[in-house]
């Protein structure tokens, strides 16, 4: 999600924060572009594959509330195509925070709980569906989050198959949280990133990745489950159509089902079928982002921490000073979307890698000024009697 350009001279002069802070025109344009390249064709293909395999091909989705709003506003037929997918019975929906936020890292988890409930209500209303399992923003996970999500009644939660947590153990089994009654699926980052990151990389030893090769790799893997979690934009956006990604996807179910020891399952199905083989203990938050696989992508430097603290302060004041102001609450929550902090990351900036590619700012420092200025403007609004 992109913010508008907002200089220090704009602070204190905003009439309509929602209209002013967010670059709605650009966000719409980007959404429509990605929908055309990725969401629409991939939905179409997956629906076809489910039908062709009589529902043996199975998928889980985690759609943010913001995403659903954009569908409603800009491309209603996209929402319809998700409804069609869900009707097949081969598709599971997961819950997450409505705003794809970092509220799970706030000092207390009330705000997190509110956003998850808001998401649950939206999914119920739009799809008449009640998710049983959970994935947090960017699969951020720690013991505290697991406890809260278990408390809220979910049966399973996704996170990264981090070696620091698993040690010698394989991600290809169901685990449970050491302190809470919730099952945990750990992403097989190697096999997931083979598709998500490396698919089109000509200098990769696995190139070109074909569906039968990939199915063979999976068939030869040891364990109960292979957790393939990836950005939906992998299909057509991160990996462009000319890499052959859609052809790969098209052949994948058939190739997988050729192997007797492979079948598809959604998150909840997998955790119903297999019992946990062990506990995982995660005192400090992990995620699927970057090489570090922790939260340093969003909270790795002083600028990010300053904005995050400001965001938390504004929330406290908002709930105290203007508890009934729904519009300001929505704006504050939209500003929690993890993207805004991601753009301020200086990780790998000297050698310029992933972040630069996805960032709308020339340098992270520009991103900081823009975001912080908006937060200062919102702060004035919140404090204004």
């Amino acid at each position, binding site marked *: 999600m992109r913010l508008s350009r907002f*200089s*220090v*001279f704009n602070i204190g002069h905003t009439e309509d924060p929602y209209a002013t802070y967010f670059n709605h025109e650009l966000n719409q344009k980007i959404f429509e572009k990605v929908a055309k390249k990725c969401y629409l064709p991939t939905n179409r293909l997956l629906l076809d594959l489910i039908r062709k395999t009589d529902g043996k091909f199975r998928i889980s989705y985690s759609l943010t509330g913001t995403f659903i709003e954009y569908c409603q506003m800009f491309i209603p037929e996209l929402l319809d195509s998700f409804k069609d997918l869900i009707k097949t019975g081969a598709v599971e929906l997961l819950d997450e925070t409505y705003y794809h936020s970092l509220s799970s890292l706030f000092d207390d988890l009330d705000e997190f709980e509110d956003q998850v409930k808001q998401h649950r209500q939206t999914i119920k209303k739009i799809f008449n569906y009640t998710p049983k399992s959970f994935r947090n923003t960017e699969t951020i996970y720690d013991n505290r989050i697991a406890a809260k999500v278990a408390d809220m009644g979910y049966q399973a939660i996704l996170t990264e198959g981090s070696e620091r947590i698993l040690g010698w153990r394989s991600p290809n089994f169901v685990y449970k949280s050491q302190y809470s009654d919730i099952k945990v699926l750990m992403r097989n980052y190697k096999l997931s990133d083979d598709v998500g990151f490396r698919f089109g990389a000509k200098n990769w030893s696995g190139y070109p990745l074909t569906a039968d090769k990939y199915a063979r790799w999976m068939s030869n893997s040891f364990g109960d489950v292979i957790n393939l979690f990836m950005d939906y934009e992998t299909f057509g956006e991160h990996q462009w159509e000319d890499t052959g990604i859609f052809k790969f996807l098209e052949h994948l179910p058939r190739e997988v089902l050729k192997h007797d020891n492979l079948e598809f399952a959604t998150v909840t199905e997998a955790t119903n079928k297999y019992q946990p083989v062990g506990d995982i203990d995660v005192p400090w938050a992990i995620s699927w982002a970057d090489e570090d696989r922790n939260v340093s992508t969003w909270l790795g*430097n*002083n*600028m990010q*921490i*300053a904005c995050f603290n400001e965001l938390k302060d504004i929330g406290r004041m908002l709930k105290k000073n203007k508890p009934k102001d729904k519009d300001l609450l929505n704006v504050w929550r939209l500003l929690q979307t993890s993207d805004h902090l991601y753009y301020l990351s*200086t990780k790998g*900036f*000297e050698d*310029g890698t992933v972040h630069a590619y996805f960032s709308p700012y*020339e*340098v*992270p*420092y*520009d991103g*900081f*000024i823009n975001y*912080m*200025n908006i937060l200062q403007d919102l702060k004035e609004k919140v404090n204004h009697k």
Partner: protein
Amino acid sequence: MKVAMLGWEYPPFKVGGLGTHCYGLTHGLADKNVQIDFYMPKLRQKVKSDNKNIKIIEVGEPGDAIFPYDRPDDKSLGGKFFDLVHRYNSLLVARVKGNYDVVHVHDWLTMKAGVQIKENLHIPLVLTVHSTEYDRAGMLYPNQWFIDLEREGMQKADRIIAVSNYTKKIVVEKYGIPAEKITVIHNAVYPVEQEEEKKPLVLFLGRLTIQKGPEFFLKAAKKVLEYEDAKFVIAGVGDMMPKLINQAVDMGISNKVVFTGKLSEEEVQHIYKISSIYVMPSVSEPFGITALEAISAGTPTIVSRSAGVSEVLKNCFKVDFWDTDEMANKIIALLRYNPLHTAMRQSSKREVSLFTWDRVADQTLRVYRGLT
């Protein structure tokens, strides 16, 4: 490998970036066992070499120093300055003899001698372009006499080194030189060591000429001062000084603007260290080593997009020199938001430590080897 390098200034006696460049380059090359005879005009004080591979050869009699950064206006075109330049070039031609592999000149001042020596000794001529007449004129009313001289040098050089892609583009587009003849080698910096406590100072440092854009700095200052308190330091001398002083008075900010006049090397280092922000709003800047110097002293920096350094430096702010609103926005943010200041200070310092003369020498040596 033995190189005759024709310069006009060398530390400790220097007025601009060229002396620094020649010092860094000659030492980088000397460390790679290249022998350099560095020719320069004779000064009142003797310049000594501190490296066995570098020989400083002073030419002529100590007299009026040549100030290579000035653009004498038309009145003085035939005057003393050009007599001195002409005499220095003739003396160089007479003096440079021996077994050199390459003759290397910097900018227009020694171009004539370079061309002559190339022909006399039958050795290749390398020309480093640090600035062109178009830069010095701030792209307005360039002087044809200089342009012709520069073009001739560029045409006769066997290889041209440009200090940035920005400069390469000017050499190609304005002087009609084929791009294949030009190698871009970005400048380096000797870091300013030991930081000091920062004061709320925003620094401009450079000659007060149209090229360096000091009036844009003042305009930004005016806007900043409506929101944040700070002192704006204008360090340097130049023909625009009286105009700038009047401008500050007219804007009603003269109590917040400090003109330092000419600073010594130590004073320059000190001002880098205590400033909170360095701004380089140049209209046309081939490279801009001062940005690297300021950053190495722990000072977050805002550079003009029309500066070569902005091509290679990531951890800085880049603005259009005329966009004083954006310049002010960034100055205010740096003054107001400590975490921004800290983050920029740390990462930019780390980045600048990669801009070494060793790298410049490596690339330059590759140019020499391609010719011999």
